């Protein structure tokens, strides 16, 4: 009896050591493979849309991604395709939130029946926008004066999608035709040089 207990103890110790080694090994493996990566959450509605990240097909969920410039697409028949390209950085809220607007009648019916799913993603988009804007405010004093709006144009900001550090802003100017130059003039009047920012003119037709 005593002998078998000793053997049992020895076996327990061996298993214990093996388990600890395996656990430690797994921990080291995970730490090495995830080192320098950011845990990003991908949310999408409809969730069965075909989503690609730099050409690789993915599904909604959590991913450990290297910081870098990514092309994100999402498509589903009957819905408007989503295309964006931006730096994914640790500075900004690590989320990719996609909401595909329905186009076909069938898709519109589905969207109506799944309003909660659309609302959930809309909430995530709104939260990310607020969190990111607050983080960017510290490095970009102009943000204190934005959004700037009158009846001819609106000037707002978002993270500069081409800034690898996620610290700079892009100005979005939504102006009626003929008033974009006026909006740039107002930025100077506010005490900032518009050429210091990447500027996106909303709905600007490519003339050249």
């Amino acid at each position, binding site marked *: 009896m005593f002998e078998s207990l000793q053997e049992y103890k020895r076996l327990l110790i061996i298993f214990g050591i093996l388990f600890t080694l395996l656990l430690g090994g797994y921990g080291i493996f995970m730490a090495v493979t995830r080192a320098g990566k950011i845990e990003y959450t991908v949310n999408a509605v409809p969730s069965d849309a075909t989503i690609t990240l730099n050409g690789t097909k993915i599904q909604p969920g959590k991913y450990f991604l290297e910081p870098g410039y990514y092309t994100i697409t999402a498509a589903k028949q009957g819905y408007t395709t989503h295309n964006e390209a931006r730096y994914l950085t640790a500075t900004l809220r690590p989320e990719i939130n996609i909401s595909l607007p329905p186009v076909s009648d069938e898709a519109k019916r589905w969207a109506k029946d799944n309003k909660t799913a659309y609302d959930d993603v809309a909430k995530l988009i709104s939260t990310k926008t607020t969190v990111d804007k607050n983080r960017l405010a510290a490095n970009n004093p102009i943000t204190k004066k934005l959004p700037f709006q009158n009846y001819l144009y609106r000037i707002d900001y978002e993270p500069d999608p*081409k800034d690898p550090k996620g610290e700079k802003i892009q100005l979005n100017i939504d102006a009626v035709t*003929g008033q974009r*130059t006026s909006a740039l003039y107002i930025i100077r009047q506010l005490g900032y*040089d518009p*050429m210091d*920012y990447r*500027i996106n003119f909303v709905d600007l037709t490519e*003339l050249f």
Partner: protein
Amino acid sequence: MKKTALYVYGAIIISLLLLFAFIRISSFHKIAFTISQPNLKVEVFRQFEGTKTEKVGEFTQATDLTLENGSYYYIASGENAAVKVTKFEVDRAQKIDVQPGFDQEYLASLLKSEQEALTAMIAKSNPRIDVYFNINNGKLFGIGDWYGTTLTSKQAEPNQPSDFYRVLMKKEGGQWKLLGKPKLIWSVPDHPEIPRDILSQLNKLDPTFVTTPASAGSPD
């Protein structure tokens, strides 16, 4: 005992002197100046707190100056050179290329012989430009190697604000070439390869004050 104390004090004093010397030496840095504009005289000044300044160097060709940490500025002067005060901070070794550009008057005189060809080149670059826009007379920047102008819509009402586009050209190897497409604004993040000073001058061009549209016939 006295001897040992003497050695210890001596060692401390020498160490302190060495430390002081090291700190002093490491606060000086080599600043390599190059001049890429002909006939220039460059004067370098140190700016102390308040209004006190001290001239620390003057040269007419590429020169290395060893300067102590601090705030400095240089003034380049010469025939046809733009008068410009350029500030710089010394906290490490660095290279500074002095090129204040030509003054406005000289640039305007250089432009006279090129204006027509530059306007024609812009018109030819995109058929839409000549159809929908007036190509205004522009300005040369730098040492006459940059040209910027504005495009105003032909449909714009005279007293109504309208969007205008900016065009930038660069002279390389004696040949002018258009840089990119006309834009409402040329930003630093979009064009880190273009000197900030050039972008600044381009973005400040205002067709309201520039000239009569070149394509409609210049009064010159």
